[in-house]
């Protein structure tokens, strides 16, 4: 039996990205995504793009899809608010958009400034017609990202996977 301690959920996300033929990984870095970003950087056929603000990732991935290339945006919940008006682009053009969000401000948070956007993240996505998927346990991360990717790329709609802070662990921030 595999215990939750043995599950490398970042590796599971990486494997799904490869299976989904996702070759453009845009991000504003977050400690929770560090090892996933490193894995992607070792791949010659994946481009990793460090953004100056999360909203750039929305347009970037939409332009890539218009050129027949699939991508994903990695960010933390504080970046979601930066994307709001940009999300009109995938929404009105029915361009598949996929993002994976590491949650802050919801479980064991010790920085109060993270709380407002963390608490607002699901509501903001729903307000902009982004389907919200959520992973609370390590065991379900891979399947959840896979389901969100299928939803987005098969139905041409936007989706977000929220990686709960309970699962990531608040201590991750201190280590990162």
């Amino acid at each position, binding site marked *: 039996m595999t215990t939750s301690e043995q599950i490398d959920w970042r590796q599971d996300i990486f494997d799904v990205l490869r299976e989904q033929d996702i070759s453009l990984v845009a991000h504003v870095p977050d400690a929770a995504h560090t090892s996933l970003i490193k894995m992607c950087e070792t791949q010659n056929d994946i481009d990793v793009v460090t953004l100056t603000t999360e909203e750039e*990732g929305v347009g970037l991935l*939409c*332009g890539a899809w218009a*050129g027949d290339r699939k991508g994903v945006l990695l960010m933390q919940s504080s970046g979601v608010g930066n994307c709001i008006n940009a999300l009109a682009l995938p929404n009105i053009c029915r361009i598949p958009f996929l993002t994976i969000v590491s949650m802050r401000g919801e479980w064991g948070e010790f920085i109060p400034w993270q709380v407002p956007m963390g608490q607002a993240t699901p509501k903001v996505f729903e307000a902009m017609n982004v389907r919200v998927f959520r992973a609370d346990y390590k065991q379900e991360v891979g399947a959840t990202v896979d389901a969100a990717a299928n939803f987005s790329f098969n139905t041409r709609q936007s989706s977000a996977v929220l990686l709960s802070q309970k699962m990531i662990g608040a201590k991750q921030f201190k280590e990162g």
Partner: protein
Amino acid sequence: MLHRRPLVKTLLESRPENVLVVSGLGSSTWDVTAAGEDARDFRFIGAMGQAGPFALGLAMAQPKKRVVLFTGDGELLMGLGVLATIANQSPSNLVIVVLDNESYVETGSQPSATAGPTDLEAVARGCGIVTTGTITKISEVNLLRDMVYDAPGPVFMNVKVIAETLPLVFPESFDGVTAVNRFRNAAIA
């Protein structure tokens, strides 16, 4: 100072087959549309600030095509950070042409930052884009054309244009799905 509409039309008349055009909200989109409907154009009618990131993603997805972005000072100012992102990715097939009229003409001609001390070419250079220029005279149009279609990218050209109120020339459809489907078919052909 140049007149933007005939300038864009002139540039697009000599457009090579492999050139994809992206235009930013809003006057740049009317300029590109006034030059004639073309399936190789993707024109923003909203999501201000997203034309640059879109053009970068497109250029990274289609390295054999040349991507030319026409946008305005106001649209670019909304997300100047993308110039740093572009410089770091350094796509050789991406060209940015800013039609800089130093104002927000459609909303009452309020001055933009470039009416003051802000120099967009200097911003682009500071972000790390090496091939840049500022065009101010009609006699420089041939140089501009060479930069747009032949120079190794990323290329950033700031074109000082007259702040004039022009007819709004709308695309055949405002529907985003129609627009992106048509464009995507042409872009990946």
